[in-house]
């Protein structure tokens, strides 16, 4: 089972907590949260991610910077902030099927 590293970016602390809990419920998924561009850029130097999720509160300029920084991996712009789309959008971005 291949480990999948996910960077979730968003400024809403309660939503971020929910998203990280849902993502980390999957045994082979490892999710890390960031709420600022600085954190995103720092994490990018420390860890290798497979996919980035952009959540609420990230402005257009920061979003463009994040997409530039992570141009080699999928950046998901819409997943609705809850459980409804979360997994499907990641499966699609990584072109994988549920285990």
């Amino acid at each position: 089972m291949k480990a999948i590293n996910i960077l979730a970016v968003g400024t809403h602390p309660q939503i971020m907590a929910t998203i990280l809990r849902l993502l980390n419920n999957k045994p082979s998924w490892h999710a890390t949260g960031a709420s600022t561009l600085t954190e995103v850029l720092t994490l990018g130097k420390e860890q290798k991610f497979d996919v980035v999720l952009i959540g609420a509160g990230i402005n257009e300029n920061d979003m463009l910077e994040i997409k530039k920084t992570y141009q080699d991996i999928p950046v998901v712009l819409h997943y609705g902030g809850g459980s409804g789309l979360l997994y499907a959008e990641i499966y699609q971005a990584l072109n994988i099927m549920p285990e």
Partner: protein
Amino acid sequence: MAQTIYHPATSRGLVDLGWLKSYHTFSFGNYYNPAMMHFGALRVLNDDSLDGGKGFGDHPHDNMEIISIPLSGDLKHQDSMDNIAVISDGDIQVMSAGTGIFHQEHNDHEEEVAKFLQIWVYPNKRNVEPRYDQLTLNKAARHNKLQQILSPNADDEGVWIYQNAWFNLGNYDKGLSANYKLKAEGNGAYIFVISGSVKINGQVVSTRDGFGIWETDEFTIEALTDTEFLIMEVPMTF
């Protein structure tokens, strides 16, 4: 020439939790079909039946336009903006999740199943201030004519959302037809038949089937039986 796609009701994903039965036209929750992710900006079309005394606990959303259309029974709504409301058949509820909202929906009627459509549309603007609205529609106004229930404009008929989308409901007698002219270039329409059968562009579309049509300016819906249907016009690119 118009492009079309037909989704029979039986092609939908079913999630049956006992207290909740939800048919997903597009991938949602634990139902994943990579060929069924969205129709343009229309991302979710769930056909839900919620048992009495049950509900969805507090959960978040962001950056999504979320519309609920009750078909029978009542749903009690509570959210992080201190809204408490009940929606019933004939109402429409809309949430712009924007920067983030938590909400719960509950069927307080122990003996009655609440049936409703849950629809999500990608927004055309991110990080808006969250908002909630609901409206009671005049159901008689859709008998043998189209009733606009949603648009991008706050001062237009129905509720409004942050997207160049228009929704209409129609309740037509057998043998009559509805002509629909798309409002915006580049938009398509997804028709969901709530009950009965219709014919669109030569395709028979029956109860709980879906039919998408785009690259056309207009189309006609012929009622093969007494029927009720929902037309969701959305941008095909966004």
